[in-house]
């Protein structure tokens, strides 16, 4: 096996507030191999976007990394000074966010923004950069890139804007792309195109992708491995087929059962009662214990760490070992 491209170990992110310190991410560890797509799923507030933000060094203050480390190709990046991190971002890590309207400047042409990014990170002249920008737009499937490069954002549709954002993220051929809900703002038919595009570009460039989404369907179709997050911790991580069909953590089981599927009929969906705890009131022991139907005394006092269960790793004292009947 090749050395992992991204290694996150025991990452802990805190938000100091007037009423005490909020622990937003606790003991997050995972790695991504070159060319691999890791999906990160979870419900709102589980900390999935925050994990992405910590990796690209864009945590909103007062949020800060309190412990743990992030290594990119062996080099530690979580403690780099701002200017150095700025160079890593874009050059080595590309980012795609949910809303293309907020990640691009409406007052400049897309060509201007692409050329700016390219000349910042690569040693190219303006005209070479423009040629590269046109190539990038073409590679993301934008028709007539020679003409489109001089257009402004409002002249593009939602799907086309997201393609421009992907072109921008790829501008300096980064080794890692962090995509935070890249298809959530798009319609299903466009979503399919963007996912196909993301898969294609990482295959062509050999880039690793961390795909943050709440859509299990997108994960199933795109990723090699998936991490399921709950209340700031990883509940389960493993190969995508195993996590979907043979989940070990009761939360993953509930999450999978609550998604209406296209190929089966059920009168009622499996439901997990209650909702995710707020960061201010994370229960002792396993954070999922108040909603869990397999809870035992140990779950209420002692926190489980990730441990191998079958093909996946789950943080649970009583993992589901039998195959879930579909």
């Amino acid at each position, binding site marked *: 096996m090749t050395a992992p491209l991204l290694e996150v170990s025991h990452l802990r992110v805190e938000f100091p507030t007037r009423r005490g310190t909020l622990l937003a991410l606790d003991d997050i560890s995972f790695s991504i191999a070159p060319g691999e797509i890791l999906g990160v799923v979870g*419900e*709102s507030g589980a900390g999935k976007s925050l994990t992405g933000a910590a990796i690209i060094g864009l945590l909103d203050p007062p949020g800060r990394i309190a412990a743990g480390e992030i290594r990119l190709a062996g080099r530690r990046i979580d403690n780099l000074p701002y200017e150095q991190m700025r160079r890593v971002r874009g050059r080595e890590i590309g980012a795609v966010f949910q809303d293309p309207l907020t990640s691009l400047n409406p007052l400049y042409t897309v060509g201007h923004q692409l050329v700016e990014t390219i000349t910042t990170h690569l040693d190219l002249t303006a005209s070479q950069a423009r040629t590269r920008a046109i190539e990038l737009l073409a590679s993301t499937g934008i028709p007539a890139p020679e003409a489109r490069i001089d257009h402004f954002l409002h002249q593009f*549709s939602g*799907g*086309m804007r997201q393609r421009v954002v992907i072109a921008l993220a790829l501008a300096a051929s980064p080794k890692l792309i962090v995509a935070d809900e890249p298809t959530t703002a798009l*319609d*299903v*038919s*466009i*979503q*399919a*195109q963007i*996912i*196909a595009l993301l898969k294609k570009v990482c295959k062509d460039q050999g880039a690793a992708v961390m795909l943050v989404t*709440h*859509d*299990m*369907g*997108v*994960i*199933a*179709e*795109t990723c090699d491995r998936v991490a399921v997050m709950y209340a700031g911790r990883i509940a389960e991580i493993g190969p*995508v*087929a195993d996590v*979907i069909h043979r989940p070990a953590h009761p939360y993953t089981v*509930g*999450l*999978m*059962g*609550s*998604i*209406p*599927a*296209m*190929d089966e009929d*059920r*009168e*009622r*969906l*499996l*439901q*997990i*009662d209650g*909702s*995710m705890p707020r960061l201010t009131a994370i229960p002792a022991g396993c954070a999922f214990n108040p909603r869990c139907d397999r809870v035992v005394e140990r779950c209420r006092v002692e926190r489980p760490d990730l441990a191998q269960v079958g093909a996946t790793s789950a943080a649970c004292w009583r993992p589901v070992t039998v195959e879930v009947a*579909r």
Partner: protein
Amino acid sequence: MSRPLVEVKDLAKVFDVSPPWLNRVVERKPKAFVHAVDGVSFAIERGKTLALVGESGCGKSTVARLLVGLYGATRGSVSFDGEDIVKTLAGAGAGPLRRRMQMIFQDPYASLNPRWKVLDIVAEPLREHGLVKGAADARQRVGELLSSVGLNPADAEKFPHQFSGGQRQRISIARALATNPEFLVCDEPTSALDVSVQAQVLNIMKDLQRDKGLTYLFISHNLAVVRHVADQVGVMYLGRLVEVAGKVELFARPRHPYTRMLLDAIPDIHMSGRARTPVQGEVPNPLNPPSGCSFHPRCPLANERCKAERPALLEIKGVRVACHAVEEGRD
């Protein structure tokens, strides 16, 4: 066969999106109109669920608003239990009719007044329609309603901000149920919710339908959710219905090329690693829709007739489809 509870005939809504008068005069711009809903007809049987699906801008929410009278129709009619809603809402029968049909909105953060207690929010329709006498009566009825959607009667004293998204959507449902309606229009009731919470809300909606015999118009862009709740499914594209079929039929044998494309496009958790059928193109600008069949620029089956002539919604093998290719059997 009994008479359908809701019958919509040739419903249309045109919005005037022209630039202001001065701009039109100075810049010589013409008036502009969007045909948000353009000749939609369907019927919903009592106790059943019709789901409307489609991508953003296809007019599904406009249909919902037309049905409850939040917009006035440009053309066509909506009849509820045999009464024309436009005429009834303008006359003395407005109150009783409004009592019988209610609406649930998409965003439970925007549809509940943050300054009101849950008690007042849920009791408002009760008071408005004179269904309760006095505060004690209202309190008791609100308590019953909250219990019926799985909340605690004591929650009536709280404010909306003290609830999570799923709980707020339950409050919206409790408010909609306050007048004992027969027909609920649900405009994307679960799109703003997380999946585990969505499951809770969908289960409650199904239980209520079974217990009270409710009829639903369910608007959604999520085909998997639609498959779970609907009896009949209508697929909309640029303001028109392109296919209406029973749920089982539609998902097993989609006829219209757009329906097939939509079904192919949804990522499903059980087809890990499957190669997707690439989808062509994007939804055209509704200000300037294509000629003929509005789907023809993206359709693999399009020919000259599709570019020139607009297909009507025809009954073909028990399914209503608006497509020349299906009609001619070249699909």
